[in-house]
């Protein structure tokens, strides 16, 4: 709008109309937040104690058990979030664009750049199970 343009009534309402978008955006974002909160589940996964050696899948995680310990990764590819569910020659392969990861989660072939997200877990001695915290 040029400064020399007159602020007619119609123009005023038009600007006001556009300005109303802002509280709507605020409302929209708050609504989403509250909705997420309402539907947030306890995001944990329970795994049995005798996890198998090597790589295995339990959706939505990948378990890598080796002599030096257990690592649990999110099965979502760090490129664009596809669920990885395939092993070939000991490598984890994403079916969507072919990223490859080693059993320690590191990337050996792109397009992915980031290693798999490692998830923290605890061992519940009483129940004798692993509890994995899903992010």
């Amino acid at each position, binding site marked *: 709008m040029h400064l020399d343009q007159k602020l007619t009534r119609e123009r005023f309402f038009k600007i006001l109309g556009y300005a109303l978008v802002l509280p709507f955006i605020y409302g929209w974002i708050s609504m989403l937040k509250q909705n997420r909160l309402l539907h947030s589940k306890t995001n944990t996964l329970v795994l049995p104690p005798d996890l198998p*050696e090597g790589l295995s899948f339990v959706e939505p995680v990948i378990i890598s058990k080796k002599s030096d310990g257990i690592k649990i990764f999110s099965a979502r590819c760090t*490129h664009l979030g*596809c*669920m990885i569910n395939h092993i070939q*020659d000991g490598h984890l392969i994403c*079916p*969507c664009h*072919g990223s490859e990861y080693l059993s320690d989660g590191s990337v050996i072939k792109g*397009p992915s750049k980031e290693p798999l997200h490692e998830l923290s877990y605890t061992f519940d001695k009483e129940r004798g199970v692993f509890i994995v915290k899903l992010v």
Partner: protein
Amino acid sequence: MTETVRRKIKDLIFFDTYGYFSIGFFLICVVSGIFLAIPFDVNSPYSSVSSIMLGNSWGTFFRNVHYWSAQFFLIFSVLHAWEYIRKTDRVQVKRGVWFRLTLALLVSFWVMLSGFILKADADSLQAQRILDSLLSSIPLVGKSLSYSILGRDGNFQIIYVHHIATTTIFLAIIIFEHSRTIWGKWKTLLILVLFTSLLSFIFQAPLHNNLDPVIKGPWYFLGLQEILHWLSFPGTSLLIILLVLLLIYFLPQTKYRYRMVFKRTLLYSFYIYLILTLIGLFFRGENWQWTWPWENPYLKTMRNYVTPAFISPNPDEKLSKEGLPTVMDRKESCLICHDGMKGFSPAHKPQAIGCVSCHGGNSFSSDKEQAHHKMVLIPGNLADAKRSCGTTDCHPEIPSRVDQSLMSTLSGMINVNRYVFDEANTLSEVAHVHELGQTAADNHFRDLCAACHLGNPKVSFGPNTELSRGGGCNACHLNYSKEAGKALNTYNMSEKKDTALLKFHPSLSLNITNDHCFGCHSRSGRISTSYEGWHETSLDKEDIINKSGFRILEDDRIFTRVSDDVHHRKGLDCIDCHNSYELMGDDNSYHHKETQVKIQCEDCHFNKPPETKKYAELDKESVKIADLKKNSTPASRFVVKSKSGIAMTNVFLNENDTAFLVGKNSGKIHPLKAPAEICTRGEAHNKVSCSACHTAWAPRCIGCHNEYEPQTEGFDLYANKYTKGSWIEYAGKYLAIPPTLGVEQDILPDGEVSQKIKTAVPGMVLTIDKSAYTHVKGEDQFIFKRLFAPAEAHTTQTRGRSCKSCHNDPVALGYGEGNLTFNKESRKWNFQPKYQKNKNDNLPEDAWTGFLKERIGEFSTRENFRPFTLKEQEKILTVGTCLNCHDETGEIMINSLINFQMTLKNLSKFCLLPVFR
């Protein structure tokens, strides 16, 4: 003239504008969508879509109409947009309207994509995840935007609302604003309805069976999928899309000069995108690998696009009563007809995995023809194992392992054969049967040996027999029960060959018997027959009429009874020693069998506590096997194979440290014995392997000749086809005598030399005449080889060989059969061979090395295996000299095991040491 014809054809096909086509398809899509919404259930979308496809033929028809009209709506919308962009010089559109039209283009893609996601199959779920990641990568509002468009994880309600309402209403408004009509033209609409109906009657709208490992987005985003493959920062793709939209939006407002540049950019980008789409559609296979369209599993077995929709006005009574069979959330039409099928192992029951998991076909159709379309009748052959046994939910890592294992590659056999024909320079080349060429060596291999590889497909129903070769997974895992055999007989006898007669299915299990191995392993090294105590003869059936002690194999070879292996006598099967990693490979490529086989006698017969693993420490595969076989208890500690570090699931120590082996098939418990004290007394025999002493006999064949016969009809065992001309083998004499001994010598990583005395048999003692093959005459066409091979004969006896049977035995020493004597006068050893000397190397026909001679040149089928050197022969014969007088169980000889040098120092006056030079 041609121009007129061209115009006429064009007018005939494009009887209306792209815009009206687009409107027409939009309308068809909306109306068919309303019908489709009735059977579609947004709470279980995949299940409801598969139900529609299977049990609701009119529902299927509406779904097909909805799908095809949508695809054409998109195509014509894009064409129409391009038409507009081309005409921007002439057509004036208001800025606001042009903005909304540009936006409509984006919305059109979104309405399509949301429809793609709503079928909720494997492709859709991955697409949803990708979209979520892409939107979330938009700064500030990304996550909220994604949540508002895609909704909660695993919930399709929001997407559904956007698909049927938001986007549809928006597009309807835009269409109306843009063209001032919502109906288009009646004639066009009518033709399009007919066209879409016909198309929908013939071609099925796709649904992923959630088994095929290939994941693809909708066809119009396959180009984008390719682009994303190259983008490590995928957010860039959103910028590209935004850029394209901005380009389109600003196009009418830019100056003519720039406009032309913009248009060209758009056009070339479109062409590039088209090429990428074609690549994505036809050339991308599993794991993003490049494949040719005819090899592409996506287009091959698992998905059925080309199936005529089957429309029946009457609903299937049976289906409405019993409901649609569901397996893993997938509707499985196969079970409608094949529901009572019995005979499966628990893991393979159709109720658990369905039929399509193994057999492919189309589980979303109840019409026989359609359901059986592209079905794999005998799954498990290695060529399609990845799409049957090896799918993601089943045994995904096995096919590639098996493909690298020796039973598939035949690497050692091919390499040795080529070496013998002077077509390979070393004995340590890795080869694969699939790379066999058309040379003298490879043709020799094709004619005589190439049937026995796991990739050789099983092509007919029925159990494995002595004549079976290869067969992929079935080679080991297929078992026919009596009932399954009977059902097969009924089927074979029937005229119509209706597979519904096969009420009993053969089982696929871990019940792998010696008979499974017998077909291939009763040949070449003949370990299967030797293990059972049978030795091949050159007799004919007529020779043994009314005679006992013979066995006629299904291939008519006659075997005679010799002693069987002690493990066989005890009831042990091949799989009791050879575990899954040895048989199916462990992801490594091996040159020769002794490197892939990890079991050693010492793994079970130990006198020191062995390394063990608890159940929780087992690898995934061993856990599976241990669970299925149920041989162990929670307290069992599984003994580890020292060569591989893999635990044996049937060999363990109990609470009292007692070691047991449980027969995997028999369940019989065998306490394990430690080696006898004599085996480890002193250091004299440290280098001697167990089998060197405990092998009772080994089959051997001498004097073999190979010739090419150009006029003889042959059979290429690899290609399974008849050929003109064939290599023929003329076998010599078969013998069953204790084996020759040789030395396996390796340099260890620390530089030390390791030596092990092992058993050997004549591997390739033969003459080859290549002249008829090469059509060249001359001496260089004639090959003579005398190569021995390391071989575990599988004829173990409890008692070891006597001392004399090695130290005073010409066969053990490598001289061949004959008379080995010691002359007390001259104190010299003499040898009179039984067989004539071969004119090619002047050695007796069955010898490996000359009597008290150093063998040089080529002598073995392995680079690390050799006959005894002259010095070693002298050492052995020196002990042999003592044994001429001293009893091997006497004090002198027993003590000599501890310190032979000391024994030599304390010689009596009667002792005669040999003179060698």
